[in-house]
């Protein structure tokens, strides 16, 4: 995690401002994600974490500031044009297509790719998530919460993103499943993925991440190596409950 810092970042967010009507939700945040890093964005409810990810993904338009992937400016493109550039968001609340089968959901994840490449990617996902293989033809809305989260992550991976953004992948899951999700994140990291992770579970997020940003009401208040923040007094008080 040290030598990558010197290269140009994969994702660079610069002075981002986002509004919901008159509400100033993101007030000038800047952050970077380097290749092969896991970076986590933690913060209390309503701090603006999801807004940040949704803006990077192109679902929301910033009023000011830039989002760059490999130096190419993404703002103003719209989400559907950003995906093929190598950025994929697994959104908060999973938002899988409930009425489609597991396999169809995965195929939709590869919507902008060459159809000929899809079977190989499907196999890859089924290997990583054997539970999904067993349920290939099941209607996604009937999956359990944990299975739905795995499907959402697999679907986001189907576009072969250079950067995977995960918005609260552990939300609403039993502790055992939370562990499983974090194991998957670690595995993805080991196989070379670059991840921007938003989490309520700051303890676990900081444990897997290389670097972290702490957000409070639309601004970044702290940043640094994850291990440092994990042992920082202020972070411990505010987010780790000790």
């Amino acid at each position, binding site marked *: 995690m040290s030598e990558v810092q010197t290269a140009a970042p994969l994702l660079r967010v610069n002075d981002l401002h986002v509004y919901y009507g008159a509400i100033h939700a993101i007030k000038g945040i800047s952050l970077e994600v380097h290749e092969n890093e896991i970076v986590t964005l933690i913060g209390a409810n309503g701090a603006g974490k999801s807004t940040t990810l949704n803006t990077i*993904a*192109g*679902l929301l338009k910033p009023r000011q500031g830039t989002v760059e992937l490999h130096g190419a400016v993404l703002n103003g493109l*719209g*989400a*559907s*044009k950003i*995906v*093929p550039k190598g950025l*994929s*968001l697994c*959104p908060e*609340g999973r*938002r*899988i*297509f*409930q*009425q*489609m089968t597991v396999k*169809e959901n995965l*195929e*939709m*994840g590869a*919507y*902008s790719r060459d*159809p000929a490449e899809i079977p190989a990617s499907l196999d890859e996902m089924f290997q990583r998530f054997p539970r999904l293989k067993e349920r290939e033809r099941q209607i996604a809305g009937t999956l359990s919460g944990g299975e739905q989260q795995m499907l959402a992550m697999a*679907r*986001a991976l189907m*576009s072969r993103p250079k950067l995977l953004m995960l918005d609260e992948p552990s939300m*609403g899951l039993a502790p055992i499943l939370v562990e499983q999700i974090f194991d998957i994140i670690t595995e993805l990291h080991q196989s070379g993925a670059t991840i921007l992770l938003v989490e309520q579970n700051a303890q676990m997020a900081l444990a897997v991440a290389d670097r972290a940003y702490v957000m409070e009401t639309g601004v970044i208040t702290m940043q640094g190596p994850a291990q440092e923040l994990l042992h920082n007094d202020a972070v411990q008080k505010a987010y780790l409950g000790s």
Partner: protein
Amino acid sequence: MIFLDNLMNGLSLGSIYAIIALGYTMVYGIAKMLNFAHGDVIMVGAYIAFCGLQYWGLPPIVAILAAMVVCTVLGITIEGLAYRPLRQAASLAVLITAIGMSYLLQNVALMIWGANPKSFPRTFINSSILHIGGLNVSSATIYTILANVVIMIALTLFTAKTKMGKAMRCVSEDRGAAELMGINVNRTISVTFAIGSALAAIAGVLLCSSYPILQPTTGSMPGIKAFTAAVFGGIGSIPGAMLGGVLLGVIEIFGKAYISTELGDAIVFAVLIVVLLVKPSGLLGKPVREKV
């Protein structure tokens, strides 16, 4: 035998409602709006076919294709010019725009073709009466029911199997998530309007083949009834539009034949009210789920 005659007429009328209702239900499912101008696209389609047959001497099939092409372009244009700029606007604004668009189409038709009703020419569709057993069936009835069945099968396959069909299902379920897949939502909505409008052209020709009087308001009542059929079957659902349309047609014809000619339409709407009281999401509609 009278009963069977009525049944055939009901199925035929219902098939027309069903084909129109498909346009309402697809647009509602995917763009989440009620396109009240849809009925008037039917009227435009019928006028184009009428001109093709009467003035331009086109063979019937070519006249129908011309009507489909014009309506497709019209549908895409209406969506792009009037509805797309309102994508983020309140649904009431969109509804009022759609009603305005409906009147605009009617008045433009009035300018071009005048207020005098035109009598729709005979074609192969309504050329003959077939005698099957003791039954007297107009060929228009057969073609209409057949068209309905073919369209139903084609649309089901389209949404189940094709890439664009699947993209439509995604947009209909969750527009934001669909965008995150790389689906171009605007293009998907355009294609939906294109399909709905092409079907409206077919419905216009079939309607005027069975009821050959054409005027600028021709699309209004069938449009409203088909909208009713879409709600009846469960708005947003393709099989629901089919079922709702066919049932509505049958109920209307039976109501007129056995209860009262004057009250035929009232019976139709009374049935709708009862169904919605018992099952607010319509016959095949899915109850609205709360997001977790």
